[in-house]
């Protein structure tokens, strides 16, 4: 094997090697993303994804981990406090009983909405359903 053949051989294999190096970087990125999202949702029963939040708190796009009993409202003592002028101090409750989530309106001024319909009594809901409290909109998601 002369020098030129060796050179071509090295170049060829280093191109292939660099392709795999790129793939390895990408896979490392994907793996880190997966681990981060797994850590966020650790031990939660579900998540509330914030779809819209004009007040900025909670931030739009945030994923709030849920416990068995969660309260939403403007008061700071809620498990999920909302910075929203249209929300009551203790506005709604989201509970996990048995195998189902229930949404309950706590006699709020402006009402609680499930998929655009007002909630009159504790109503069962599933993953993917949309909850509106004041101007803040959430989606119930399974724990990631």
């Amino acid at each position, binding site marked *: 094997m002369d020098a*030129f053949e060796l*050179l*071509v*051989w090295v*170049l*060829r*294999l*280093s*191109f*292939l090697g*660099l*392709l*795999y*190096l*790129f*793939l390895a*970087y*990408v*896979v490392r*990125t*994907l793996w880190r*993303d997966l681990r981060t999202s797994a850590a966020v949702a650790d031990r939660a029963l579900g998540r509330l*994804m914030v*779809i*819209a939040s004009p007040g900025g708190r909670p931030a*739009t*796009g945030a994923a709030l981990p849920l416990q068995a009993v969660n309260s939403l409202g403007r008061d700071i003592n809620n498990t999920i406090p909302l910075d929203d002028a249209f929300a009551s101090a203790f506005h709604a409750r989201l509970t996990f009983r048995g195998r189902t989530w229930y949404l309950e309106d706590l006699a709020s001024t402006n009402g609680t*909405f499930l*998929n*655009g319909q007002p909630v009159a009594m504790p109503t069962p809901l599933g993953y*993917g359903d*949309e909850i*509106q409290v004041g101007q803040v*909109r959430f*989606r119930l998601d399974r724990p990631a």
Partner: protein
Amino acid sequence: MTSAPLVGLRAAALEIRPRRRDRETLLLLAAAVALLVGWISLSTTEAGRLAVGDPAPLLAYLAALGLCHLAFVVTGRRTDQVLLPVVGLLGGISLLFMNRLPQDLVQQQVGPLELTLGPLQLLWLLLSLAVLTVLAIVVRNDSWLRSYKYSWAVAGVLLLLLVFALGEEVNGARLSLRLGPLAGQPSELLKIILVVFLAGYLAEYRPLLAGMSLRLGVLRLPPLPYLLPMLAMWGVALAVVVVQRDLGAALLFFGVFLALLYLATQRASFVALGVALAVVGAVLLYLLQAHVRTRFQIWVDPFATAQGSGYQVVQALYAFGRGGILGTGLGAGLPAVSGGVPVPAVHTDFVFTGLAEELGTTGALAILGLYLVLAERGLRIAAGAADDFRALLAAGLTLVIVLQAAIISAGNLKLIPLTGVTLPFVSYGGSSLLASGICVGLLLALSDAGVEAPPPPGRPGPAERFRRRLAGGRERLGRAVA
């Protein structure tokens, strides 16, 4: 007097906050180094000594990638950081390969310039990157897609009819449409329109489709009126095969449709029904259409007609064999045979074969790995989407690219009967590159954490309203009888 627009401009300027995208920078650098080494490898093989050839096309392409990255950084978009480098690497590999092939495979007059394969592909790649970047930055809400789904569907059908009526026949398939100096393959655009329509339709009717059922023995089928879209889709796919002779597009359309239907309803019975319909359609077409029969026979035994209709597939299999594990090296594949390339259409449908010959199984697997990464990222964007429409749209756009790559690479390998579609971002061809650019651009826009929130699910759709009215009527009737 001029103060109001100025204030607006200043507000817009304040709103734009540059944001670093370190992962994208790193990945793009890795891709650039790989491509440069690939270019040197190719030039050295071709020149017979250590050479870099004329690196201007590659440098222009890498500069364009850098500009896209810079545009994302300056506008501070929080979009996905993996998609652009992956797409960039695929496009770069395409650029290397198109510069390696005999340049006279394609010749086109652009203005005063006579352009050949390599420069043309560079031009289309740059255009595709531009479309991708503009869509990813400009698209901040989706109402133009969401609210006009039926208008999009009508546009799609019109486009299809236009091809049926005016399409030009190339290699027995009526695919391309020529409007003055511009020629394009509308089915590339059609697949995006189809995804937009299906995402809108399925997001609206999801509760109905998933909830109700019609019992038929052990099968639980959807209620009859909601089966109609499936039948319509089946009809469109068959029409595409019969009139356009485009097996690949039909397979892609129907596959994406079934996948989205399953994503929306999570009911395997729909998929079973769809597959059954597809099998019935395939048998019918096999019996009635000569070109379908030929394709199938080539797949079963290409060597029976190795010098005739099976020539392409046989040559492709030999090329895979020549490649082996590590490949012959870029530029060292089998040179032109009697003036032509050994595998016909090696720059379009058989680009995967060509790359597998020169980069070997190792390189081919790396390319398939890049598509897998695209799939993972796209489906994650879908999983994190704010509502049904966006989730289905993101999944559909991802599937269009990945399914197409799967169909054509499997066809090249003789795993399934060959159907002519392009390998997204790698095959030569303007329509394909632009359509893939649109897909990834929209995906990037959907992945942005800062886009507008989707509209609230306020007024129920027409079907839901109809169903409620029916239920109300039944109740009233029951009360009256009692």
